[in-house]
């Protein structure tokens, strides 16, 4: 088991400031403190190109660029294509999950979620911590 770098830079993306705050707090409880925020896909993409992140956690339903579009941009970008990408979203129809999987999502968490689910899914993505 490779040790997880608890100081890894993480980008969280959501258009609801309260949700950003919730995710940030839960990540802090899990021991991750190095967290940046973006409020839509295009802002996130800009940040991802400006700085190297180890993980993206993104909502889907955002304007002007949605989480799925962001995922597709990330996967088609040579520099970013391997980045772990977790979708945390209220969009939970089967077609959403299928589309996200086809676009290359690493994991998918449906809102509302709890801290235990967040920990389990993140462990599946970056290893146990």
């Amino acid at each position, binding site marked *: 088991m490779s040790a997880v770098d608890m100081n890894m830079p993480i980008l969280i993306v*959501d258009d*609801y*400031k*309260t*949700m950003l*705050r*919730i995710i940030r*707090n*839960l990540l802090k*409880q899990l021991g991750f403190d190095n967290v940046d925020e973006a409020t839509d896909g295009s802002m996130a993409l800009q940040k991802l190109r400006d700085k190297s992140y180890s993980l993206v956690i993104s909502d889907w*339903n955002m304007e002007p660029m949605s989480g799925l579009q962001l995922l597709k941009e990330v996967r088609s970008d040579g520099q970013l294509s391997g980045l772990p990408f977790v979708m945390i979203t*209220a969009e939970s129809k089967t077609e959403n999950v299928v589309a996200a999987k086809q676009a290359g999502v690493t994991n998918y968490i449906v*809102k*509302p*979620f*709890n*801290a235990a689910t967040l920990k389990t899914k993140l462990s599946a993505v970056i290893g146990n911590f």
Partner: protein
Amino acid sequence: MTALAQQNDLQARLAEFGRRHPKIDPKDLVDVVEAIMTSADGDLSSVNLKLYAEIEQLAVYIQRAREEIACLRPDEITAEHIPVAGEELEAVVGATEQATNTIMESVETIEGLTSQMPQEVSEQVVDAVTQVYEACGFQDITGQRIKKVVSTLTQIEEKVHALLGAFGQDGQIEAAKARAAKTEKPKTDDPPSDADLLNGPQMTDNAISQDDIDALLASFD
């Protein structure tokens, strides 16, 4: 149009048809039309009568629908009800967001104090704090649902607007008349009833403050 003029018009059209479609003989066309007319001739007058009757019924039906729509006061739906409902929902989103932030701020403070608590207490407090964070997700979820409702309202507004357009100015005038007839209540000095006074929370723009209320109450003394 007189019978002669009709005939001239028909001949001109046939000539034009012949120019455009040189391969078809206009005489053949005349034969076809004549055949149709002959076969329909016997029925024509009774068909006409039935048609007139149906058109008349349709006119009555449209008139009644128009009156009913006017009574529904669709102009009020687009001018008042829907915008007010939209504002109320926006106020809900705003109020829950504000409250959520306040709750989170307080809980963050509590979480910050856990380092000063005995180990056992601290663990329990952190668990409770985590549950509060999780529950605060309601703001995001309800916000998204309300957004959907607002967009549905906007669609209804557009449809009602189109309906008003389809019935023209008359529909709106009738609606205004109906409203005028309805709102003409006899004036009395009776105070408003309990039900009249129930309006729920006011929008911040036009709400009166606690200071205003205190001043108002003091003015009775």
